[in-house]
């Protein structure tokens, strides 16, 4: 899973966490191991501890479903975060903004910052460079000997950067880069530039 840290702004961008998805499945009788949902929080903790950002910006699809029992966990997690939290809301974010605002989370449709347009869905930002999520981008690499491997990635085109999905249990979508695109693939320990 990957995040983007904007050092100058001390802003941590995290996209498509899909909290609550596992609880949602369980509520409808599909026994996905419940321990798996904790992984999202340990990963969030690790990212926050590493960058120590002033602001955390979730790029949409933070909470996967309607309100369920996992909301409490999320509340507890938010309470111990020191920085400010912003949510750029996405298609899955159907929980009322008031609920977020109660917890001090600012909910917006988009965010314009220093020539950058932050949205959930990829958008044509005109002069602004667009940073988005939503797609869960991945890249498929092929080698000789008929080898192939699929990896989640940061997908950059001239005026746009699509962030990888952060959440566990979310899946991804393979994009085919063309000549003007840059792809940074995510492996266990490093982010590797694979095409530019």
């Amino acid at each position, binding site marked *: 899973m990957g995040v983007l840290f904007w050092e100058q702004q001390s802003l941590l961008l995290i996209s498509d966490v899909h909290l609550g998805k596992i609880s949602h499945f369980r*509520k409808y009788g*599909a026994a996905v191991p419940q*321990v798996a949902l904790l992984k999202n929080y340990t990963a969030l903790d690790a990212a926050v501890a590493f960058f120590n950002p002033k602001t955390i910006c979730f790029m949409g699809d933070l909470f996967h479903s309607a309100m369920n029992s996992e909301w409490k966990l999320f509340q507890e997690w938010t309470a111990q975060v020191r920085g400010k939290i912003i949510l750029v809301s996405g298609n899955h974010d159907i929980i009322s903004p008031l609920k977020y605002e109660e917890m001090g989370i600012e909910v917006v449709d988009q965010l314009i910052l220093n020539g950058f347009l932050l949205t959930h869905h990829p958008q044509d930002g005109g002069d602004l460079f667009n940073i988005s999520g939503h797609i869960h981008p991945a890249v498929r690499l092929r080698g000789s*000997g008929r*080898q192939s491997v699929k990896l989640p990635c940061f997908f950059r085109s001239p005026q746009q950067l699509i962030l990888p999905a952060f959440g566990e249990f979310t*899946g991804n979508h393979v994009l085919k880069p063309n000549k003007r695109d840059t792809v940074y693939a995510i492996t266990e320990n490093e982010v590797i530039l*694979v095409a530019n």
Partner: protein
Amino acid sequence: MNNDQLYQLAKNWFHAQDWKPFAFQKQSWKAFLQGKNGLLNAPTGSGKTYALWFPIMLNYLKQNPKYKTTHKKGLKAVWITPLRALSHEIKQSAERVNEDLGTGLTVGIRSGDTSAKERAQQKKNMPDLLITTPESLQLLLSSKGYDKTFKNCSAIVVDEWHELLGTKRGVQMELGLSRLKTIAKDLRIWGISATIGNLDQAREVLLGPTSKALQNSVLIKANLNKKIKVKSIIPKEMETFPWRGHLGIRLLEDVIPIINKSKTTLLFTNTRSQCEIWFQKILEKHPEYAGEIAMHHGSINKETRIWVEQAIRRENLKAVVCTSSLDLGVDFAPVETVVQIGGPKGVARFLQRAGRSGHRPGKESVIYFLPTHAIELVEASALQQAVKLKAVEDRIPYLNSFDVLIQYLVTLAISDGFYPDQIFKEVTDTFCFQALSKAQWTWLLNFIVLGSQSLQSYDEYKKVEVESDGRFVVHHRGIAMRHRFQIGTIVGDANLSVRYQRGGYIGTIEESFISKLTPGDVFTFAGRNLEFIRIRDMQVHVRNSTKKTRKVPSWMGGRLTLSAQMSRLLRNELYSVYKDPAQQSSEIKALHPLFEQQGLESAVPKPDEFLIETFKTRDGYHHIFYPFEGRFVHEAMGSLLAYRISLLLPVTFSLAFNDYGFELLSDQEVDMQQVLDNDLFSTAYLLEDLQKSLNSTEMARRKFRDIAVISGLVFTGYPDKGIKMKHLQSSSQLLFDVFREYESDNLLFQQAFTETFEHQLEEGRLRLALERIARQEILWKACNNPTPFSFPIITDRLREKLSSEKLADRIKRMSAKLMRK
């Protein structure tokens, strides 16, 4: 009436038809009326339905002597058939006897095709004799008060039991029977099976290995000795006959005289796409057959299939191109000749197909074998031996299918609920769950109630609830409804229905094919050229097109493996190359040019030799091994060897395999001498190594998909409205990863591996094959070019992969290639 009077009734009926009952029919009547259970081994078209319908009815007459005036209400017998298509045939034969004997019994069908209205009526008033499928029987168990429905049922007949035996539908059947044994006090259980290698075991599975039912049972064999003649179609010009391929179209003109010579010919193909192509090509080359040939496969709509079946019976058709969809059931007397296109992969299947022709008594069955590529002629030659020896395969029953058991328990919880102690006893009486431990049972109960093994915080898991008296029930209506939809999905294929835009159902098609099309594309399906318009609500909308196309949907089901017996016979045929030509079959003789070429480029192995070839092409370095053991064993041996080599050096392989051998393809050369020196074919640590190699290959993951669906971990959606199958696939994949990381002791997760070992990789056979290789001398040939033997393997595009390299290293090499595009 006493039993003798009843037999007389049956005999008289046969006389009235100008028939004479066979010994096996009389034996079945007698055993049934004595209250025995049994397995009847009889082929299609032998009169097996009369062997069991009769005693069922006679038993009713015995119980109810006043049958002419008073009719006793309620279900008396259930006839289970794995194929819905057969139910009408079975119903007709029952009605015929019913009418002639004046029993006053009613016959009804209940299957996925039965209308909701009719089903509701049946629920109120069951027919006396019910014909249904395993799935519909499970659905009956999910309705309230099912015990009353079955209380007075006197017989359950499971038709085509051999078809169910090696499948999870068979397990579903075992569980259903375990329940019915308890609630129906005077029940006889009968199976009908074609010839398979393990008939005794088939009876054990049907009745329960330690049950009273088994003690009180018989095995009756029809023993109708039938002559079968196998003729191979040998290409006239062997030199130009292709080394690879799977269609066989090149020999089309050789089939025409065969079709012309007989009244009706069935052409059996191995896959539906092959079926479509053959049908298309025959019409293209011989338009004079228009209206006289037809096509029959499982994805074509029911009406068309029934029309074709009736046309065969009325002798209106010269030829029918078909798949295994015509393997079972109905008798087609007019069929004189059968052509098998491509290797049938199993002796039993081949015999069954051969038996489709020449049904008239005393007539010989003739079956032609048409090879799709050169080496398949060896298989043709081996098949002749197999037919002579009647070397029929076993059907291996499943053990501990936890997914099916979970589904069954929820089914019971939906209807009247269940008490675990009682059901545990019934379940452990079945063959499948005879070794189920108390701990596993507790695990399963926890799974359906808590969704885990302990109570967890923040959890809203809801499925089965436990009432204060210990009864397990489902209260939630949504859960019950979703579960009922899930019951039918045990075969779990990702199919979409194909319709014209203005309605009109054409058939079903795999989503994987459709997903590659864009609107406007034209493809061939059900013998027509169709333009793809869109997908909506699990339906593919199309319109007729006049454009020509080469796109034909493929169905994944066609990949079968050679059985152990066939593999052995195949090797023997191959070794006969070194025999005196007078002792060689005509197929082997015809292959001489190919063997010569093979000998020139590499070698044809002798019985004490194990052939390995290495060469380089544009694709990379090929390492090819020839155990001749069948696809599944090769898949296992390939991943085992790849794993063991990967321990010696960081390397990435892509694996391909067919029935003759397997290939490890890499972008670097493997030092074969090192492989041989390290004794990598050893049987030591076999299971451990296989397990580790499995983590890298993805077999268990694929098995898990069905397990997740059957056990209700993922929901396939409502018919025509559900989530896309692709979505389902990916969430079962995600689930697999989650289990692997967090809950690897999950029984369903482990089941994926057990199934892979027992049913996919055939670990037992693998071990024997490795022991054989250990006794053989290794014949390693470093070749300059691809050899005739290697051709069908290296051109296979369906591949597995295994790697021991660092991901980052692989990516660096691959990204170089990505950029060049």
